[in-house]
């Protein structure tokens, strides 16, 4: 009984488990930290590891289908960069080989390779971001900083489907009247298109007046506004997570400031051996980036044992 | 209720279709046919489910296949060409092939069963039964509702009994005894329900006179066409059964691909692919419509 019913529910709403279940703020923090780190660190080791972990994360948050779609383009782009960069840029000193009288340097190759990695990492992050932190949640966080803007965004979100619906109706009606944007000369089409927009505008505006009234009648702009909080923030739970992420992030930044984790390519590329500190930083980054994995894993284990 | 694409056909047609498929599939071990139906079955399955699911399924059945292929030769030793001896049992090439064939048979059968259960839902079965014999249909539905009811009761009773001492005894026998009791009561409860169902049936005039049978299915022209096509193929199959039939031992039957044979295979392939084709057409159409709308 319960099984079937909640199956039905599951079909209706997306259930937030594991990483998705966390308070949106936590997720946002995670993503921002990751983004910053990826931007700053340009050491291939770090980037490679990030990419690797993030790929797993994406698979975990089953967004890998989306990922594949993007991957094609990104690889293409990256390849492009590599080729162009290596063939056009002639900075650098270590010559690899010479093709048709052009010296192919190692540095630009490396540089473009790193850029590609960076792009990839960012993309991976972005995809994951997209399908964990959906519009609602993002808006929720957003609105706690910029009340009004968020509010108007919501209004917009509300009105998009309405407008769509109206536009459909208008185009139907006008089509029958003999105006349409699918037939006739460009000029005619343009004209009728303009007409459509005009109709849409007048219609929507007149209705918007009502909306405004309704808002006023429900006391919009009468004074201090409170906010309904659908997500609960439990210090004992979310707090700790944020704490760890931020502290690790701090360490990484400090490391950066001390000059670790970057490698200078131009003018002369030299790869310093991995020091202990590097290893530590590497570890930190891995932990941060693997955060969703950790949480999901914990969840999984818990359910495994509850059964 | 999944009522798109191939499922749009009239239940009768669907039923005949699957009947035919199963007959063809199970009646011969012809490698070509096996191949045909394996491919088409998997294809259809993957169309109706996610790519991921299909993969996992295939993965699972791969094991099954290996198992069968290895198991058969172990116990079945006929065949000309002996490969080697395993603790002085001959391992023959033929039985090896036979194993493979049977493995394929099982897999494709499994897949076709899955497809079947997706297309021919309970209410279609009901409809079919109803057209033959309305009473039967009703008892069938009662049964359909009785079993889950029974299960639910069982679960409830068990969980309650846990709190009133079902835990206490450690001896296996008593536990078993308890289980039997629970099952009995669960059954009783469900039966009570069924009785009142029968009451309400009577109250609504069941058995007063000959029932008619209401259905939301219509028999369209394309159903007719499809049905005819099926029948033709059925007959074709029966006529050429000799050629199509295939044996593995004592030695593999030679697979002669004459013109007409290949034509026949082609036709049978068309049967296998029919639903897949329709589903694909549906997909494509939607792609197209999307771009329009």
């Amino acid at each position: 009984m319960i099984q079937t019913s909640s199956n039905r529910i599951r079909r209706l709403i997306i259930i937030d488990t594991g990483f998705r279940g966390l308070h949106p703020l936590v997720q946002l923090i995670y993503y921002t930290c990751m983004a910053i780190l990826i931007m700053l660190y340009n050491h291939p080791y770090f980037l490679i590891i990030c990419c690797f972990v993030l790929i797993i994360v994406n698979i975990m948050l089953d967004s890998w289908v989306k990922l594949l779609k993007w991957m094609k383009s990104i690889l293409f782009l990256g390849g492009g960069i590599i080729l162009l960069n290596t063939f056009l840029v002639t900075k650098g000193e270590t010559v690899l080989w010479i093709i048709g009288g052009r010296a192919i340097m190692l540095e630009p190759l490396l540089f473009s390779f790193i850029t590609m990695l960076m792009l990839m990492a960012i993309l991976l992050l972005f995809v994951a971001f997209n399908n964990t932190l959906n519009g609602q949640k993002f808006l929720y966080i957003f609105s706690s900083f910029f009340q009004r803007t968020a509010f108007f965004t919501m209004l917009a979100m509300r009105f998009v489907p309405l407008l769509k619906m109206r536009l459909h109706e208008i185009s139907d009606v006008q089509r029958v009247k003999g105006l349409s944007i699918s037939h006739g000369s460009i000029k005619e089409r343009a004209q009728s298109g303009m007409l459509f927009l005009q109709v849409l505008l007048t219609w929507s505006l007149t209705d918007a007046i009502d909306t405004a009234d309704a808002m006023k009648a429900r006391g919009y702009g009468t004074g201090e506004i409170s906010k309904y909080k659908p997500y609960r923030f439990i210090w004992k739970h979310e707090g700790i997570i944020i704490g760890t992420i931020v502290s690790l992030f701090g360490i990484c930044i400090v490391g950066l400031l001390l000059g670790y984790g970057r490698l200078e390519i131009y003018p002369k590329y030299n790869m310093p051996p991995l020091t202990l500190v590097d290893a530590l930083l590497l570890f930190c980054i891995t932990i941060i980036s693997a955060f969703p994995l950790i949480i999901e894993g914990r969840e999984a284990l818990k359910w495994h044992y509850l059964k | 209720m999944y009522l798109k694409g191939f499922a749009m056909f009239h239940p009768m047609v669907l039923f005949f279709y699957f009947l035919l498929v199963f007959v063809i599939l199970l009646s011969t071990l012809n490698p070509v046919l096996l191949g045909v139906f394996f491919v088409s079955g998997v294809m259809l399955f993957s169309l109706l489910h996610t790519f991921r699911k299909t993969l996992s399924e295939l993965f699972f059945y791969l094991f099954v296949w290996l198992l069968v292929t290895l198991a058969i030769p172990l116990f079945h030793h006929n065949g000309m060409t002996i490969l080697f001896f395993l603790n002085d049992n001959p391992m023959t090439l033929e039985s090896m092939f036979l194993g493979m064939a049977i493995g394929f048979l099982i897999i494709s059968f499994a897949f076709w069963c899955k497809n079947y259960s997706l297309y021919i839902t309970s209410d279609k079965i009901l409809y079919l039964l109803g057209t033959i014999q309305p009473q039967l249909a009703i008892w069938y539905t009662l049964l359909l509702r009785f079993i889950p009811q029974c299960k639910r009761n069982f679960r409830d009773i068990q969980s309650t009994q846990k709190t009133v001492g079902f835990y206490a005894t450690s001896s296996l026998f008593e536990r078993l005894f308890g289980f039997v009791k629970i099952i009995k009561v669960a059954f009783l409860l469900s039966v009570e329900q069924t009785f009142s169902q029968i009451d309400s049936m009577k109250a609504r005039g069941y058995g007063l006179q000959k029932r008619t049978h209401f259905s939301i299915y219509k028999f369209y022209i394309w159903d007719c066409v499809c049905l005819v096509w099926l029948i033709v193929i059925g007959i074709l199959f029966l006529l050429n059964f000799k050629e199509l039939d295939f044996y593995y031992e004592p030695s593999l039957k030679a697979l002669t691909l004459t013109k007409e044979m290949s034509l026949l295979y082609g036709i049978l392939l068309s049967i296998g692919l029919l639903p897949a084709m329709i589903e694909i057409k549906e997909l494509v159409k939607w792609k197209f419509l999307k771009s329009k709308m």
Partner: protein
Amino acid sequence: MEIFKVENVNFTFAESSKRALNAVSFTIQQGSFAVLFGASGSGKTTLLQLLKRELTPNGKRDGEIFYKGELLEDIDAKTLVSEIGFVMQKPDDQIVMDTVWHELAFGLENMGLSNAQIRKKIAEMTSYFGMGDWFHKKISELSGGQKQLLNLASILIMQPKVLILDEPTSQLDPIAATEFMQTLHRLHEDTGVTIILVEHRLEDVFQFASDIMLIENGSIIAQGSPRIIGQIVKKINEHHIMLEALPTATRIYYGLSTFTNESPITIREGMEFIGNYKNEIQELPRNIIEQKIDKPILAMKDCWFRYGRDFPDIVKGVSLKIQKGEIFCILGGNGAGKTTLLKLLAGQCKPYKGYVLLHDKKMKKYSMEQLYKKNIALLPQNPKTLFLQSTIREDYEVTAKLIGFDKMEASLQIERVMKMLHIESLMDMHPHSVSGGELQKIAIGKLLLLQPKILLLDEPTKGIDVFAKKQLQQLLQQLRAQGMTIIIVTHDMDFAAEIADCCGLYFDGEVLAIDVPKSFFAQNNYYTTAANKIARQLYPNAVTCEDVIELCIANGLDKK
């Protein structure tokens, strides 16, 4: 013209010697809305079944029943089937088919209608009831309310002249019940179909009914229009138990006065009536039980629960404390949650986040035995599931043995329980063959044998009549007096208001607003007892009928 005419009908069941009905006679006019009420086991159902020939139980019947002036026996089966519709108590038990559309068609199929006709009838029916969007659903996907509506529809589709309903809402939650009654009313208004209804919850039926009949052990003792039925009953017996069943407004009216003019029946009329009382005194001088804040006996620390990894959360961070020896009511609408919460408290489910404390010790740490022997007992929503043996006595004995009493003590204990609940007469019956109220009692009896410290009840008042409810209430208070902690999950606001020391409102996986009933209901605007609705203008803190009456008496009439 009268559609039914019953002339002193007697009926005795085949197996029993006692008369189930004696000398029942009444007439029902065409287009009227008749409501029967009475204690369970008083033969209401039997009477209805006699009116519907197909369902007549086997037994001996004398006296005549006329349908439209001719004997019920003489009318041919087909007309009878289609003209007299019967809706039973349990939504599930009368649905035959497994999809909605097929269920609707069922009756018509039996009548041998053609496909086209059936389609037309179904079409208009669904259009009228607005069932379009769940027309294709499977029965298992419907809610209780929807199921009952479907039953109604699938009867109506045969275009009956008379509609007989046997406690149609007893298994539904209040919202669904009200909806159902609204529909019934609309139906009556629109089509003027004759309706004969048996019902316990008269609150929302009374205003629609055209005449009321009170039936008591097998004979109709009172009959009249809703506004005067009270007086008639009062004449028979000043404190007749069934007076409790009347709507709140009426009860208040009779509680306050012995006026002989027509009584108010709706809440609004109640308000108007109350309006002529003064409201100086807002509070009653009551000895309020002081909440002793010692260690809670049972506590939840923000618990989260769901039925599987990728299922939605059902309990979302509930934390509550339950003091020793109090009656704690968890109220809330239908839908997932309340029962689950109870299961968590009973240790049948384990939260995946947070924990449950029992005697300051985590629930996890207890073994089954420690948990359920002399500690926690849970009364499930369907008490039948408690019984495995073929008679109640056997079952009790088994339970007693299991607790570890020897023969001697076991029989003593059973005696005690029997005395306590007055169920001596039932002991040798089969557990499934007793009425709802009695079942409730024997189930509690069985639980009491386990000598629990904490008693959890899941919807104890579902489908039981006023009389049984009163008894249950007394019993629970008695147990509480013995220091037992009782936790109840219920829809029934009036019941909660009567007995609870503390109420919590369950909503969307949380328990909001835990408070003593008085202020709990006083704060609520919409989700509150009828009594409170009536009186809130004058005495915002009065939540039960008794409060209102006492307050009114205390204040006295307003001269002007």
